[in-house]
């Protein structure tokens, strides 16, 4: 699915496929607009990544979905019913597992005791089946060995694992995870990623907020990007990144860079090469070879046109030292969309080389 316009309240999926939908969701704290007219659709089976810089409204949105924060206006529909229907929302929440920000537990109780409390909150019966389920999720997050320790003795990573265990305790249909890898070591992060993938394979919908864009790109099928409370884009990760693909050229001589940019730009503008959508300078990736002049030339064009682009340049006596497919990343897309540092490197006017590019 392509990225949908911000103003579109509906996704392309049928209504009964949408497990969580926000409609014009707005939250205002005094003068500050935390969430502004947010329209999100989370489909059944999605691993949906909610992305955004600090203060963009991610956690506030999750809090509203979980009934912790009251929306100023707009609505949230979960499992087909509005949260304004208190009883529906209460029962819907019992089908959701969540961690919002840091996991919160009773410090003087052990892990199993805390999970017993979560089971009580979630309306699970105080039965042998519940106790067995508690043991199961503790094993799942590798905390069975520490079952006799009180929560206050747990490390940050163990606390996060207990939070994940609590989120999975009631076999939820929707799991909401706010920064689930916070405090985990690299191995723990990999395991959480594997766990999320496995949940998705088993049909459990996951709504995830994270700052770790690389992680999100690896596990999420769809993302929504927020900035200052507003939705900038949402859609399938592959579709969003397709717009970021293209070609990257580097040259052995610095003066060839602006010449190549001029040739390709003119060809794209004149219609002789309509498949060229744009040309701009980009810096090399960290650790990569730095060409003379310090810049690369990025061409927004289909990868299969690489030979045509090469031929265009060769016709003008310009030969690229390297021509390769540009690897699109969610990080680049995110930064470009939210006005991060990557955007600053994008030169909209390709005819003049960036500073240092003509050295």
């Amino acid at each position, binding site marked *: 699915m392509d990225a949908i316009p911000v103003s579109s309240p509906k996704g392309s999926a049928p209504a009964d496929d949408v497990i969580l939908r926000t409609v014009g969701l707005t939250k205002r704290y005094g003068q500050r607009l935390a969430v502004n007219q947010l329209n999100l659709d989370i489909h059944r089976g999605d691993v949906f990544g909610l992305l955004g810089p600090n203060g963009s409204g991610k956690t506030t949105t999750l809090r509203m979905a979980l009934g912790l924060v009251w929306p100023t206006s707009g609505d949230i529909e979960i499992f087909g019913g509005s949260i304004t229907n208190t009883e529906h929302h209460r029962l819907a929440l019992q089908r959701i597992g969540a961690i919002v920000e840091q996991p919160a537990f009773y410090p003087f109780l052990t892990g199993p005791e805390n999970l017993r409390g979560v089971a009580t909150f979630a*309306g699970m019966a105080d039965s042998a089946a519940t106790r067995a389920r508690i043991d199961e999720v503790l094993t799942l997050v590798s905390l069975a060995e520490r079952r006799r320790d009180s929560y206050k003795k747990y490390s940050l990573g163990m606390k996060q694992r207990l939070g994940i265990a609590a989120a999975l305790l009631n076999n939820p*249909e929707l799991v909401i995870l706010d920064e689930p890898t916070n405090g985990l070591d690299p191995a723990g992060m990999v395991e959480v990623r594997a*766990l999320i993938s496995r949940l998705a394979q*088993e049909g459990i919908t996951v709504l995830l907020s994270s700052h770790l864009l690389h992680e999100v790109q690896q596990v999420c099928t769809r993302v929504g990007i927020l900035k200052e409370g507003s939705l900038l884009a949402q859609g399938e990760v592959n579709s969003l990144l397709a717009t970021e693909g293209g070609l990257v050229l580097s040259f052995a001589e610095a003066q060839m860079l602006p010449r190549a940019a001029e040739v390709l730009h003119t060809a794209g503008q004149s219609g002789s090469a309509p498949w060229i959508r744009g040309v701009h300078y980009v810096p090399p990736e960290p650790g990569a070879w730095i060409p003379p002049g310090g810049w690369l030339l990025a061409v927004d064009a289909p990868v299969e046109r690489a030979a045509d682009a090469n031929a265009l340049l060769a016709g003008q006596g310009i030969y690229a030292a390297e021509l390769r497919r540009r690897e699109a990343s969610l990080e680049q897309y995110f930064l470009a969309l939210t006005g991060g540092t990557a955007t600053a490197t994008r030169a909209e006017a390709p005819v003049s080389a960036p500073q240092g590019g003509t050295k």
Partner: protein
Amino acid sequence: MTAATAPTATATAPRSLGPWLAQTLRLAGWMLFQARRRVMTKVLGGILLAGFLLLTGGELLAYVAISNQSPARNGCPPAAVQTQETESNGGAGFTCQEPTPEQLEDIKRAQQQEVNSQVQGLTFPVSLGRVGTFTSFLGVLLLCILAGALVGGEYAAGTVRLAISRGVGRGQLVAAQALGLAALALIVAGAMLVLGALSGVVIGPALGGHIPGLPFGGWLELGAYWLALSLNIFIFELVAMFFAILGRSTAAGIGAALGYLVGESIVSTIFVAVSQGIPGEFGQFLGHIPEWLLGVNSGAVPVYVSQSPVDLGISTNSVLVKLTTGHALAVTLGYCVLLIGLSYALVRTRDITD
């Protein structure tokens, strides 16, 4: 962590969507479980028990002291009586004289009455009144601390967020907290009365006290006394709960409740004292203010309940202003409704960001 046994979507979760009340009772039970697992509960319980033992020990010491007291006064030898010296026999002082047999009999009778009174206080059922008065002071104080910690702790640890995000209704949360606190008050008041009863059937008779047979109404009175004591504890727990919710912290709950407990006692005493010095309607108005204060009324209920058909030995003079049982009970229950309502209004309308 291993993802090998991730739950399946089709697994049947042990889920109960029972009635609201059943869930609320389970939440109240969870609160009691938490209370039992807190170190603070054990410490406060220990203090209350130690206080009871000190009280009982003090009463026993007093009994021993009174029993062994010599009738002599101001340095007179045993079995002597004091007479006022006159001008003629050397000055304004005391002198000792051998008592007459009648005087000696009077002295012994007075001493025996004192001993009997002390023994009666250590004998069931009057022992309950003694323990009840103690519980109305130290029990209330300690349970204010526990209630503030239990309710405020939910905000400090962030577990209020855990509960609500799992489907616990906001009204349900407040109702469960109030029910849990009520159960705690009943447990503590009951436990203290059981201790008082045990000491009353063991210590009192051992010292020669007599346990009277209680009429049916007497047993009902003891039940009502238990409820009245619990209500007196509960109302201050509710004060702690309200302030813990208002301030979203343990410190706010404990501090404000203890502050109110002490503050009301001082303010009501001042009102009564000042009203006696101011003649006219304004003075009367000031004197009536304590009749509507929370602690004055809640403290009066057990005192009035303990008067008949069995006198548990608590003087009605201990109540600052003259009230009726109905008035005290109605005002106390009114405050209960008000505090629970205000707590609910706060929880209902506020965003949970803790």
